[in-house]
């Protein structure tokens, strides 16, 4: 695509936005359109003419400035300035003048006391898109982006979206932590960061709880250590367990799909059913062994158990891969030199496993930091950062500043973990061994080690089966919470009853949220996959200034815990100029940008397998970037695209941490609805609903696996460092 074509399209788009589309957001939905071209649906040109938005005249002037040259067929570098000016004018005015009139006091001499300005609408959106198009065309005309306007436009719009939906909310939140009652208060910020609520060590000496930071770190460390060790035991048995290892490998692998398709807190429900005060196991213990009923499951032990149940299979996946990649010949070499089995294991196998162990530890650590559902359901008095942040926003004392400060602490810990890993890996990047599958039989485990592994792995396996069994059964018995195990359809009926009044009527209380969830997931999945693959292609195959920055921003959203995202979104998009809270759109946007990194990583990995000369061959035959993308790259990336689709669909169905802040009465999501049922004590309905979700996702994932072979789903495949040398 040439710069001129792009610039003309952009001009057309912006002009439409100026003259036709309503400039401001329609607060009461599409019905307001009837007021066009006046009232709240007025396009900008009407608002300019009646003088009520006089500060937006620069928008019209800039477009007028761009038009003559473009109509005469010339696209110059100056377009970049005009485009940038448009974007700045719209956003600058949007932030400077809000619902309460002037927001930026220092502009008073220039703007006086302007009237309230509601949020931006479709008209503004079109003008922004046009502005970005003009900017990109100008850059392409200057020879940037390989002089390809299509690439320029993609990069500029992706960059804009990432800035708006990843970077801006973070910055916004940081500034919220700096403010108190609308005034800049660095002292209050400092006080929040070092508040005893976060850092108190009271639990060491008294019965009071410790600070949430310590709680969070303790939980994350325990989860990471235990999950990794369990995963290791499973992996050792599966790969080195001899003949029976094959059997266990199959069972373990089947188990690894469970955490993926289970909403994170569902395990907590099962744990309550088993070990709560009136739980099945608790009752059994009381009846048979006189062990008194207690609430021990609510707190650190329960949350830890739930998180390990979710993370151990993922650790297994990582370590299993790494262990298989260690070529048996290395171990054989060691044994031919006379080393005993235990020596071989300690001196060869273990060191080679270290990077994978570190990766698995980091992943479990970070997931534990980000986990919100389990601490919410099982935490009791044991608060962690993610739940504390939630209550700072949603609790009785709404305190965004405090939430922001806590979110910053959580963010800092997460980044710290990633940074430590990067440092550690940077020093020892031995790609594990030879790569190509070589012959040789893996050394058998030393007998003692094998026994230990089996003693740990099999009971855990049985425990996992019991937990998921409870979930399957729980929705179909009268009252699993009190051990009444007689069969019933009642709970499923409450949630999913379908009646017939002149057509099917979805009476059940869960239908609304289920439909919304499926809708939001089905809309966001293709957007995530599409944007992710595009970004991967731009990052891997195009050379342009700011490429590293773009890559960094995509990966940034991977590292931000969901709760932080939720808080930052609600702070950034609750007021003009970009007002999205309460819509389904914000849910879609949240999912798209949270799941983006997985699509990008997958795309980059897949592109690394596709020789760059294919792109170049297409170019020498006259294929521009767009043709090459459509005819060569995308067809070859199909497996990666399908995987990204599946992953984002499933994650959108199971996520809870970020969206719990963003749902509204009209747009509720399944997971949030289930959490609400738990809090209302309707355990059975919650479990029944969870079963329905699990079945839907199981069908989706298995269907996709059938289509494209074993899809590499999960955050694990995105977070794993490249330690599997070609295995």
């Amino acid at each position, binding site marked *: 695509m040439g710069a001129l074509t792009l610039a003309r399209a952009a001009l057309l788009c912006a002009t439409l936005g100026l003259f036709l589309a309503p400039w401001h957001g329609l607060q009461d939905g599409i019905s307001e359109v009837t007021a066009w071209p006046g009232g709240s649906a007025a396009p900008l040109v009407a608002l300019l003419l009646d003088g009520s938005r006089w500060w937006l005249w620069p928008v019209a002037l800039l477009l007028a400035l761009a038009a003559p040259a473009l109509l005469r067929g010339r696209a110059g570098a100056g377009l970049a300035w005009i485009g940038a000016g448009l974007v700045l004018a719209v956003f600058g005015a949007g932030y400077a003048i809000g619902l309460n009139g002037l927001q930026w006091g220092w502009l008073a001499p220039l703007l006086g006391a302007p009237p309230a300005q509601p949020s931006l609408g479709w008209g503004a959106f079109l003008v922004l898109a046009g502005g970005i198009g003009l900017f990109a065309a100008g850059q392409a005309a200057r020879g940037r982006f390989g002089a390809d306007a299509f690439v320029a436009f993609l990069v500029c719009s992706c960059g804009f979206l990432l800035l708006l939906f990843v970077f801006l909310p973070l910055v916004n939140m940081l500034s919220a932590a700096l403010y108190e009652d609308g005034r800049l208060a660095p002292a209050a910020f400092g006080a929040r960061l070092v508040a005893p609520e976060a850092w108190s060590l009271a639990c060491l000496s008294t019965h009071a709880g410790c600070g949430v930071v310590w709680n969070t770190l303790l939980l994350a460390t325990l989860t990471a250590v235990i999950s990794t060790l369990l995963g290791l035991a499973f992996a050792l048995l599966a790969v080195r367990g001899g003949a029976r290892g094959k059997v266990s490998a199959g069972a373990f692998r089947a188990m690894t799909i469970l955490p993926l398709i289970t909403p994170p807190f569902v395990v907590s429900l099962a744990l309550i059913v088993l070990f709560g005060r009136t739980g099945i196991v608790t009752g059994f213990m009381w009846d048979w062994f006189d062990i008194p009923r207690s609430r021990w499951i609510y707190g650190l032990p329960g949350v830890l158990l739930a998180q390990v149940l979710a993370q151990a299979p993922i650790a297994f996946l990582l370590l299993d891969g790494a262990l298989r990649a260690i070529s048996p010949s290395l171990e054989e070499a060691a044994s031919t030199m006379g080393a005993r089995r235990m020596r071989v294991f300690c001196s060869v196998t273990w060191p080679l496993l270290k990077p994978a162990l570190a990766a698995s530890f980091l992943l479990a650590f970070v997931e534990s930091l980000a986990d919100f559902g389990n601490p919410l359901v099982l935490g009791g008095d044991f608060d962690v950062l993610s739940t504390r942040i939630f209550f700072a926003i949603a609790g009785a004392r709404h305190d965004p500043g405090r939430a922001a400060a806590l979110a910053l602490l959580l963010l800092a810990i997460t980044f710290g973990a990633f940074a430590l890993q990067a440092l550690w890996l940077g020093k020892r990047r031995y790609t594990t061994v030879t790569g190509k599958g070589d012959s040789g039989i893996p050394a058998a485990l030393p007998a003692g080690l094998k026994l230990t592994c089996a003693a740990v792995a099999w009971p855990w396996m049985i425990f996992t089966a019991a937990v998921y069994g409870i979930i399957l059964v729980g929705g179909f018995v009268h009252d699993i919470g009190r051990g009444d195990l007689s069969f019933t359809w009642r709970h499923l009926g409450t949630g999913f009853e379908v009646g017939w009044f002149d057509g099917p009527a979805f009476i059940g209380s869960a239908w609304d949220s289920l439909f919304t969830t499926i809708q939001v997931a089905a809309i966001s999945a293709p957007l995530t996959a599409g944007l992710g693959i595009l970004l991967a292609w731009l990052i891997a195959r195009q050379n342009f200034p700011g490429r590293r920055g773009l890559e960094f921003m995509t990966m940034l959203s991977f590292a931000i815990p969901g709760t932080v995202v939720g808080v930052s979104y609600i702070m950034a998009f609750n007021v003009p100029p970009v007002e999205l809270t309460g819509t389904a759109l914000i849910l879609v946007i949240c999912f798209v940008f949270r799941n983006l990194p997985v699509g990008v990583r997958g795309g980059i990995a897949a592109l690394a397998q596709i020789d760059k000369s294919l792109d170049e*061959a*297409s*170019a*020498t035959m*006259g*294929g*521009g970037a767009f043709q090459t993308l459509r005819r060569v790259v995308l067809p*070859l990336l199909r497996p990666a695209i399908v995987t990204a689709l599946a992953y984002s669909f499933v994650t959108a169905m199971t996520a809870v941490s970020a969206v719990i802040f963003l749902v509204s009465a009209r747009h509720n999501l399944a997971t949030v609805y289930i959490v609400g049922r738990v809090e209302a004590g309707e355990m059975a309905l919650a479990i029944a609903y969870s079963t329905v979700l699990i079945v839907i996702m199981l069908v989706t994932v298995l269907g996709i696996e059938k289509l494209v072979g074993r899809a590499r789903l999960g955050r694990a495949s995105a977070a794993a460092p490249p330690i599997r040398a070609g295995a």
Partner: protein
Amino acid sequence: MSDVAINFEGVTKAFGNVRAVDEVSFQLPRGALVTLLGPSGCGKTTTLRLVAGLELPTGGRIEIEGRDVTGLSAAERRIAMVFQSYALFPHMNVLENVSYGLLVNGARKPSAEAEANAMLKTLGLEGLGQRLPSELSGGQQQRVAVARALVLRPKVLLFDEPLSNLDARLRRRVREDIRDLQRKLGLSVVYVTHDQQEALAVSDLVCVMRAGKIAQMGTPVELYDDPADAFIADFMGEANVLQGEVLAPGRIALGGIPLDVTMRPHPSGPAQIAVRPESILPQPEGAPGLPGRIQRAAFLGQTREYEVETAAGMLFVVTPAASLAFAMGEAVSCRLDRVIPLRDVKG
């Protein structure tokens, strides 16, 4: 229209601090085949990619058929390239591969396929249209890549080491095929190789590169018989480079022994002197020439090879098998036919 297919004027391409191509200027006459020859890493591929538009130069000017293309992208240059890996699209069959360029340039599908089929026929690939690239032999893949490039009737055709993925026996035939096709269609071709034999066999012009610069450009015979310096003399086939002295036109001294030889004009005085192995003829001791002793002798069927220890240094000698044979340790006298006094290379 001009008779120059490609014109490089002071073209530079820097990757960070590395100047992969450094102020290179050359002209390729229309309808000629020029090879870019040089050791690995000397900038051949980069030069080719600069012609193709896959790299944009950091300095200088590039013209193709009289049109300034310096800032144009690959898609806009009307060149075609055969990649070292062939770069056939693995998800398209042969016919789709060959008609791809026509389609992206706006041709209709039926006419594109007709043209592609005609081109496949020209290259002896009829009947393979429905195969996937993975179902072809290396030689066939290579011809498909050529067909795909030619079907667009490019102004310039570029080859990057086209023979490197073929086995030795196929190489000779394929390079002849390429040469025939080029002659028949009157194509302007740039051909990258690191193999001097290949370069000598196919080229109208050879352009030897060294460290991002052109070391020498000329016809194969010029480069072989009249290399500018020791680097080229050595690169264009084996050469004994000896320290000696030019006494007068047609008379040199090696190891202090004066000899009458054929040579190009050179100022008198000490000089490096290159002697091709086949320009040396060992003769029984006592004959006029450079005395020496056979250190190693090998019989190779068509030729014999010797290493001869002389006062000027060790000489590597190749003689026809039919010539007089000598055994190891025998004393001989070497007659030198033709020698090449080398110019000083600065730096």
